[in-house]
């Protein structure tokens, strides 16, 4: 007998899928931010070869479909290296790399948005390159980067939906399972879409609040 009705257990399944999606999003964002910032630092310190390599890799990751990157890592890498990768590991690697590429681009343009005269002034005052980065470039660049970063995060949340294709049971996969069982595509996909929408809204709202705080020093506070 086929059980085609919605049950209370489905709610649990949905929450579990949402949890998996959000956890992978959080983990890959953290890893991607770290890697992307390291790449940007390579460029800031003008490390020969490595800086060019980071730029090329970021360009390649930025200009190819995440789905293909996912297939390359999940199906291709184990064959090449003769190892095994679980779907979750493959998802972690791919999404972190993809996020890193976009973080790199945002970080580079944010660093370049800080006026060159400030760097020269800092050097005249005898600050080392690290001190300049830490005290002068980073605080301003962070405020510049937050807007584009918010857009990136909302986008990356949606990109996590692709990992359902390689078998990670995330929110989209839960939707596919429920869709197959109940054959009520309208209800199922509307609920899934709504959950993604709410999560995206939450992320955008949090970023907007953080941005107003970082930019607070620029605003006229009144006398």
């Amino acid at each position, binding site marked *: 007998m086929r059980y085609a009705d919605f049950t209370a257990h489905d709610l649990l399944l949905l929450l579990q899928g949402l949890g998996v999606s959000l956890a992978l999003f959080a983990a890959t964002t953290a890893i991607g931010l770290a890697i992307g910032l390291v790449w940007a630092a390579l460029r800031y310190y003008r490390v020969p070869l490595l800086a060019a390599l980071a730029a090329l890799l970021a360009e390649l990751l930025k200009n190819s479909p995440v789905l*293909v990157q996912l297939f390359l890592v999940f199906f291709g890498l184990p064959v090449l290296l003769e190892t095994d990768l679980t779907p979750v590991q493959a998802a972690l690697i791919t999404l972190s790399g993809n996020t890193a590429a976009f973080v790199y681009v945002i970080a580079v343009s944010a660093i370049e948005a800080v006026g060159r005269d400030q760097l020269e002034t800092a050097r005249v005052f005898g600050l080392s390159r690290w001190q300049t980065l830490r005290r002068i470039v980073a605080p301003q660049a962070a405020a510049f980067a937050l807007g584009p970063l918010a857009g990136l995060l909302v986008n990356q949340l949606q990109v996590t939906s*692709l990992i359902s294709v390689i078998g990670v049971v995330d929110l989209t996969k839960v939707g596919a399972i429920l869709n197959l069982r109940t054959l009520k*595509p309208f209800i199922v996909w509307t609920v899934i879409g709504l959950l993604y929408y709410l999560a995206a809204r939450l992320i955008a709202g949090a970023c907007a609040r953080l941005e107003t705080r970082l930019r607070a020093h620029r605003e006229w506070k009144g006398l």
Partner: protein
Amino acid sequence: MQFDLTSLVPYFGDLAAGARLTALACALALAGSLVLGVLVALMRTAASPLARRAAGVYVDVFRNVPFIVQLFFLFYGLPEVGIELSAFATGVLALSLAGGAFTSDTIRAGILAIEPGVLEAAQVSGLSRFALYRRIVLPIALRSAVRPLGSVFVNLILTSSILSAITLNELTGSAKIVAADTFQPFEVYALLLLLYAVLTWLVSLSAGALHRRLNREQI
């Protein structure tokens, strides 16, 4: 560990067929999202608050819901209400709907960048509403939106790979078959990644060139 591309040569025909399908889907979706984007952008800059609200909801929803969810909604949902489309038609429809939301953003920015004086002058000269849109608003807005539209199109090409999830054998879908046939997934997908990167790079290059050409009097 080995990297051998020569054994893939017999499969280049299959990949080319997939690439043709991708190109066709993207071209149709580009046309669809341009039409939709222009309409929605005009609604979002209209005087009527109702039109602005409706267009805003459309853009908000399609930008904040993952494309694969929209695709499944249409692919499984449309037959439910009696609309039977092929996988290809569903894919083009989904791409156009999602692309329309992003396109409307860039065209809206182009419309808002028009100097109010130009529009007032046109209204004073007694141009009809249609003539105003056709002769003044759209030429200026579209011309200044070419480069951002190029990056929307690049995104469209990248997004079209997701159509392989609804059994459409476009470039990514046919590569999946080739990878299964040759047992060389790494080579196939690495090649595919490069192909997409070169393709999108060419698109953004030509969009940049077109932008410079159309805007040459402005500089």
